Every structure is written in structure tokens, then in C-alpha cells.
């Protein structure tokens, strides 16, 4: 029997306190049963997933050293005395120097720059598309219910398919290179941002929109003047956050030919598996961290400015 929080009315002659304590005990018993059932269900799922993924202690113990083994093989061999040694007459660095390890430094750097540009381009295009689609998709703003349904399904499709899959398709369609990667990231980011934006739109006040309807404004004018000023700070913050994600995505789509540093990383992993892997990895991690830090600062500054108002 399911109990409600409201207890039956106290009848004359009954003690309210005793009645309440009995009611409270019953409710606590009921909650305990529910929690135990939940815990049981959780444990079943946990062991099931361990079984499926073979997350056994033995395979972990066997696997972990292999990870270190791999990293050992891609570690650079550096010698203290040669660390900052310059290039010789033929322009070659001695083995054991940073110069030797990062022989292709400028190639890596230009590829990282390409990766960042890919992220910027796709974030800008995706944001523009997402803004328009989010107005169509928001339940309170959509020009017609069916338009809203179509826009929402479209956005779901865009964010439902992972970038890497889109990238594979576009590499096939437009060839290897950053264009394929940009297209892939743009579509996925449009879906993700469009959903977030439309949720922001659904919380916007409709009063200014009513005001602009009464002025004789078109749908586009109502969105531009009535909604956009309200939601713009939130949109900017989400777009910056998406930029951080897109930098990482741009580094990954290269693995399937989508351009950027990922393509080089894939290359050095599959062909050499030597210290060049760490050389690239370190640069990628540094770039991503740096961008995350800067963008996070910008977002907090934005939010801080908002909350002061």
C-alpha cells in the first residue's frame, strides 16, 4: 500500500502525537524498502556491465603495465648536456636534444593553428545556424507547430550523430582535409547548441515579444528585438563553451582524414610509434588546456557582469 505524506485526520479521542509517530514510522519503512530495491537494481546493473566489459582485476593487472610499456617506447631520449644543443652545419640536431625531439616543431605548430582555426570556423557557423534554428525550435516562439517539430527533430539528428561519423562521410564526399572536419564539427555543434539555445529561448519573457507583435513586427523582427537581447549573454557563454569542445573535436576528426593536428597524430602513431607521438601529444594537451583556461575566464567574466545587474 502506498502511503501519502498526508496522514488521516485525527479523530476525537486519538492522540495526535502517537498517530503522527505511527504514520512517520510507516512512511520511513516504505522509503527504506524503496531504497533497498533501488540499491539491488543498481548492483545488478553494475555486475552486469563489469561482466560485459571484462573489467576484471586480472585483465587490468595485465593491461596496465602494457600502457606504461607503450609510453616507454614513445618517450624521447633526452640527454642533459645536449638538451639545448643547436643544429649542426647541415641543419640537424644531435640526438638527445629537444631540437632533435621536436624536429618537426613548425609543422606541428602550423597544424595546431589549423586545428584552432577549424574550431573557430565551425563554432562561428554552428552558432549562427543554431541561433536561427533555436528560434524555430523553441516551443513558445516557433512560427508554426510543425516547423517547431521539424526543427527539433533536425537538431536531434545533428547532435545524435557523432562528429567522427560525419567526418568519415565528408572525407568521402569532399576529400581528405580540414573542410571535411569543419563540416562534421559544424553539424554536430549546430545540433548541440541549437538545443541549448532553444531551451534558453523557452525561458525568455514573452512580454517584449507581445509588445513587438502589437507594433506590427514580423516574426523575424520579434525574435531580433524581443528575444535576442534577452538571450544573447547566455548564447555567448554557451558558444564559448562549445568552442572549447570543438577544439578537442577538431583534434580528433583528423584521425579519419578531417584535417588538423589529429591527422599528424594518427600518422606518427601508425607509422613510427616513437618519441614523435609524445611530441605531438604534449602540444595538443598544452593547447587544449590553454584554450580551456582562457575561454573559461571569458565565460566567467560574462556571467559575472550579468549577475552584477
Amino acid at each position, binding site marked *: 500500500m502506498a502511503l501519502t505524506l498526508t496522514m488521516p485526520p485525527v479523530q476525537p479521542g486519538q492522540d495526535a502525537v502517537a498517530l503522527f509517530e505511527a504514520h512517520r514510522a510507516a512512511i520511513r519503512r516504505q522509503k527504506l524498502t524503496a531504497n533497498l530495491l533501488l540499491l539491488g537494481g543498481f548492483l545488478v546493473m553494475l555486475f552486469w556491465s563489469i561482466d560485459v566489459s571484462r573489467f576484471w582485476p586480472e585483465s587490468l593487472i595485465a593491461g596496465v603495465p602494457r600502457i606504461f610499456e607503450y609510453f616507454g617506447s614513445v618517450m624521447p631520449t633526452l640527454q642533459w648536456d645536449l638538451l639545448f644543443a643547436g643544429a649542426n652545419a647541415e641543419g640537424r640536431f644531435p640526438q638527445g636534444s629537444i631540437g632533435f625531439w621536436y624536429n618537426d616543431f613548425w609543422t606541428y605548430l602550423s597544424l595546431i593553428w589549423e586545428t584552432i582555426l577549424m574550431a573557430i570556423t565551425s563554432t562561428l557557423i554552428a552558432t549562427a545556424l543554431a541561433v536561427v534554428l533555436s528560434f524555430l525550435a523553441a516551443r513558445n516562439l516557433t512560427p508554426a507547430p510543425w516547423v517547431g517539430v521539424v526543427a527539433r527533430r533536425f537538431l536531434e539528428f545533428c547532435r545524435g550523430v557523432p562528429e567522427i561519423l560525419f567526418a568519415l562521410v565528408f572525407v568521402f564526399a569532399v576529400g581528405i582535409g580540414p573542410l571535411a572536419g569543419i563540416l562534421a564539427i559544424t553539424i554536430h555543434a549546430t545540433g548541440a547548441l541549437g538545443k541549448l539555445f532553444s531551451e534558453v529561448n523557452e525561458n525568455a519573457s514573452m512580454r517584449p515579444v507581445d509588445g513587438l507583435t502589437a507594433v506590427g513586427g514580423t516574426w523575424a*523582427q520579434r525574435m*531580433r*528585438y524581443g528575444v535576442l537581447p534577452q538571450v544573447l549573454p547566455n548564447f555567448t557563454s554557451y558558444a564559448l563553451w562549445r568552442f572549447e569542445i570543438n577544439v578537442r573535436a577538431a583534434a580528433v576528426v583528423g584521425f579519419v582524414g578531417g584535417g588538423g593536428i589529429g591527422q599528424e597524430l594518427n600518422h606518427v602513431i601508425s607509422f613510427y610509434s616513437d618519441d614523435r607521438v609524445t611530441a605531438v601529444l604534449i602540444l595538443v594537451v598544452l593547447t587544449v588546456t590553454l584554450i580551456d583556461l582562457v575561454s573559461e575566464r571569458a565565460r566567467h567574466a560574462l556571467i559575472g557582469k550579468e549577475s552584477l545587474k
Partner: protein
Amino acid sequence: MLEFRKLTKEFNGKRAVSDVTLSIPAGQMVGVIGRSGAGKSTLLRMINRLNDASSGQLLHEGREITALTGRDLRQWRNECAMVFQQFNLVGRLNVLTNVMSGRLFHHGFGTSMLGLFSARERAFAIRALDRLGMAHVALQQTDTLSGGQQQRVAIARALVQEPKILLADEPIASLDPLNAKIVMDALRAINTEDGLTVICNLHTLDTARHYCDRIIGMQDGRVVFDGTAAQLTDRMAREIYGAEAAEAFNEALTSTSLGGARPAPAVVAV
């Protein structure tokens, strides 16, 4: 001339406005009174089609308003400006942009999306603001203004529409008595000086009596009184307000400051 013919509005089968037949000649200042839920807002919002009538007709100079669509409908909305109880301005835009948004009907897609307003439109907006004593805050963000100031900005926006009719849905219900007087004086001045038809929903009886040529009393969606302030007896008013009579009369008392000898001109010192 605005003609209502058996205008009716139902929300989920419940009648909010019921068989309203009226005619309002151009240039009249009309006050609509009635208790909460009587259908005043719905009636007003059917005029500019923020609400669509369920049945009946509305005609303006012989044109059937209830049948307008698309650009014709937007043109009509541009012709009958509206002022709201909660101002319905865009708080995050500056005052000037809010006022110039009253010109949006005359803009195409490109100029309005880019926010390109002409110097002439700017001048027009500043003049409208100045008329309401608000030109000095033109570049201020709108939500930093007080309620009374925002309502004056909203009236300036309505003015730049160059409307024929001005609809006001409880324009002073969220204002203090002094600001209420400023706003009502401005509406009256627009009516007398510019010859605009003003239709105004009012909660307090005294304000309606003081400012309006004609009072329309509504009860449960029906028009139960239509006449001059002098014709509206206390008994009649009590019936219109029903259980809210005490409040409506009481508010009338507290806002007697509104009842100056004559409505003052709209140019108000700030």
C-alpha cells in the same frame, strides 16, 4: 469609427467576451471598467488581434479587421498602438531603440535585422520622448528606469507608430499615484491634441470618470454599461465591480490626487 458586431471570444469553451456590440467614433477617449476576469483585456486584445475572436466581427472604417492576415494584419497593428500594464519593452535594449522599434513595420528584413534606423527616425523618436519628458534617458538601458518612466517610453513607442488608435491595457495599474497621473495626463493629451482614439482599460473608477468621455462597464464578458461618467451612478458602478467594489472605490479614494480640476498637458517636468 470602430464597430464591434457581436464580438465573442471563448477560451476552451468558456466565454471571456460575449456578444459585444459597440461603435466607437474616431477621436473618443473610452474607459473600459470591470472587475478582474470581466474580459477587459481580452476585448482590447481582440482589437489589435493579439487575441483572435471566436465569432463576430470588428470593422474599422468599413474594413473587416477580424479577417485581416499577413502584411495587412501587421499594418493594422501598426495603426493601433498598444500600451501594456507591464510596459512590454525590451529591458536590455536602450530607450531609443525601444522607441524606434515602433517604426519596425516600415522596415524591410535587412535594415531591421541590422538595426539600421535613419536619422529621421531617430529625430522622430527623440521628439516623441521629449514630449513625454524622457529625452534625457534616450541612451540608457530600459530596465534601469522606474515603472512610470518605462510606461512613458512605451507611450513614446506608440506615438512613433503614428497610430490612429491607442489601446491601453491597465496602463497605470503598476504605477504609484503620481506616475499614474503623469501617464493618464499624457494619454488624455494625445487624445485631445492629436485626435487619436484612446481605448483604455482601467481598474479604478475615479480615473475612468475623470479622464474618459465615455465609460464602458463589463461584467462576465458582457457590456453592462455604456455611457458618460455622469450617467454612471454609484449603484451601477457597485454592480459592475461586484465583490471588488470596496477595492475599486477605495482605490478611487487613495487616488483622489488624480482628480485635479483639468487634465494637465502631457509635457511633464521630470
